[in-house]
């Protein structure tokens, strides 16, 4: 949407948010104030905002990557969870210097997420099955599988909650800001965004992916294999989301448990759209949504506004942004 209609739309969303706050019996000014203070009010708050930004960045890049190839990856949440699960299992199973352990753990996460994405990709490539339905189903299946594993067979001995064993400290992601939860994962995410931007703009692979998304009939005639593209795109998209899950496990929680993600994979859809599917703009969008995520907790604690109003407004934002036509392979989604 144009700058002007974008501004009007943002204003409408703000008004609706204010209205929701009022309905909750809170003062909207206090609500917004608590949100902003909670997100940006100090070094600790800012670091927490950046933690949320990082957590959103990976799945958002994943969603955008698939979207550019003409695929709806609504399954970033499930891919993130499976990636985190793989990372948690691998990470807890051995001790080694960080320089070795961390890449292994992150790769495990990418592999887990990639496999999860590949299931949907294969259903689409081989059978033409809708990746929308596939990824939605896989989200739920991922949560169920994770639940089962962490309560049952993979439950960490001697721990009360449903989680796997903790990672050895040497395998934790180094902190970027000492004393905070902010780790080098942020740098990894930024590098990934820059890398994807290059891939889309300059490489043959990115060109073919975009062609498959923007004009599938023309792409096919130009020699691009649409089925293979679907499989590769969903796998890579899942891998990126899985990598995000691994950074949450190795950087924030230091173990895998079912509370890994408060829905990052779904908010990522909004972030990807607000960022116009462009990796660099997604970084900015992730920061904006990171503010919402970290601030919403303060908003709830201090101004007594239920944090779910943020999810509500994010949903509304997605509906508003759906007016942007995403060309190419959509159609029936079947």
């Amino acid at each position, binding site marked *: 949407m144009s700058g002007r209609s974008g501004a009007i739309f943002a204003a409408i969303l703000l008004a609706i948010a204010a209205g929701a706050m009022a309905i909750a019996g809170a003062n909207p000014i206090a609500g917004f104030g608590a949100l902003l203070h909670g997100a940006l009010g100090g070094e600790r708050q800012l670091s927490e905002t950046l933690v949320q930004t990082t957590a959103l960045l990976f799945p958002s890049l994943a969603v955008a990557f698939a979207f550019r190839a003409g695929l709806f990856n609504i399954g970033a949440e499930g891919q993130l969870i499976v990636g985190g699960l793989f990372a948690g299992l691998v990470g807890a199973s051995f001790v080694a210097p960080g320089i070795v352990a961390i890449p292994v753990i992150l790769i495990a996460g990418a592999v887990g997420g990639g496999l999860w994405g590949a299931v949907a990709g294969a259903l689409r490539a081989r059978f033409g099955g809708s990746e929308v339905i596939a990824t939605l189903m896989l989200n*739920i299946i991922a949560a169920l599988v994770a639940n089962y594993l962490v309560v049952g067979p993979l439950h960490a001995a001697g721990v009360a909650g449903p989680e796997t064993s903790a990672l050895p400290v040497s395998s934790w992601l180094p902190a970027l800001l000492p004393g905070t939860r902010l780790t080098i994962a942020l740098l990894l995410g930024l590098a990934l965004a820059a890398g994807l931007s290059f891939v889309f703009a300059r490489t043959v692979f990115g060109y073919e992916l975009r062609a498959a998304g923007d004009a599938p009939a023309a792409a096919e005639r130009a020699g691009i294999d649409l089925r293979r593209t679907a499989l590769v795109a969903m796998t890579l998209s899942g891998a990126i989301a899985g990598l995000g899950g691994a950074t949450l496990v190795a950087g924030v929680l230091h173990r895998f448990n079912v509370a890994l993600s408060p829905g990052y994979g779904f908010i990522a859809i909004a972030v990807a759209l607000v960022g116009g599917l462009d990796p660099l703009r997604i970084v900015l969008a992730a920061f904006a949504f990171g503010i919402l995520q970290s601030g919403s907790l303060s908003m709830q604690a201090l101004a007594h506004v239920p944090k779910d109003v943020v999810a509500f407004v994010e949903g509304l934002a997605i509906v508003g942004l759906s007016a942007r036509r995403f060309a190419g392979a959509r159609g029936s989604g079947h």
Partner: protein
Amino acid sequence: MGDIAGFLQLTLVKAAPLIFAALAGVVCERAGILNIALEGGLTAGAFSAVAVSYATGSPIAGLVAGILAGALLCGLLGVAATRFNVDQIVAGTGLNLLAAGGTAFGIDVVFGAPGASPEVHALGTQGEGVLIAAALALALALQFGLERTPWGLRLRACGENPRAVLSAGLDPRRIRVYATLLGGALAGLGGVFLSLGELDLYSDGMTAGRGFIALAAVIFGRWTPLGATAAAIGFGALSALQFVLQRAGVPSELMQALPYLAALAALTGIVGRARAPKADGVPFDP
């Protein structure tokens, strides 16, 4: 024998919200609107029904509220799709998120505490039975309506070629919006069944992806009301199976995953490649 009757009954109870949602999906998609906000419709319906029953003490008022809430949510999709030519899948995803956030917010605001509502006046076992019968009756009525009435002909034409409908002097956009209102009402009714029929409260996330299983049922059922209903009953049986198999010691999560795995299997087209309505999900821009 009693066990079998019990199993059948449980099947229908588990299937009923799926039937309503699947019928909603059929109506919308046959008209050309790919409605993945069925989940949101179920959520909105389930929550509104409990909220209004809580406020008024009347489950019937809750029923009406649930129907209206579902219609409103899916109607938004219809308007967005016809007036603004949005990407229907993206808009549907947004509506689902909106419904999830909005109802979680609503629980806190209306009931004072997050997570779940207290128990409210519900429809009881009798009401549950009436709704199940209504679901099956609606399946038959919609099958008849789509195939044999002028309304059905026009709706089907909209889903195949809205230009042809325009040429015939009708307004395909209006027909599509009405279809989403009807579909939303059905989805809302499915939600009412969940919260006021099967239970007597609303808890966060109680819809648990049923709206998406319903989409799979639509495909399985080849976009016909009776077919989708049969598929929904099949999914309901899988859910009911959980309880049987759980007693046999099979882990509950893996059992709970059965319907979703079945939906994945549906995508392989083992049921045969039926074709979606030609204009399903395609924005109509005259």
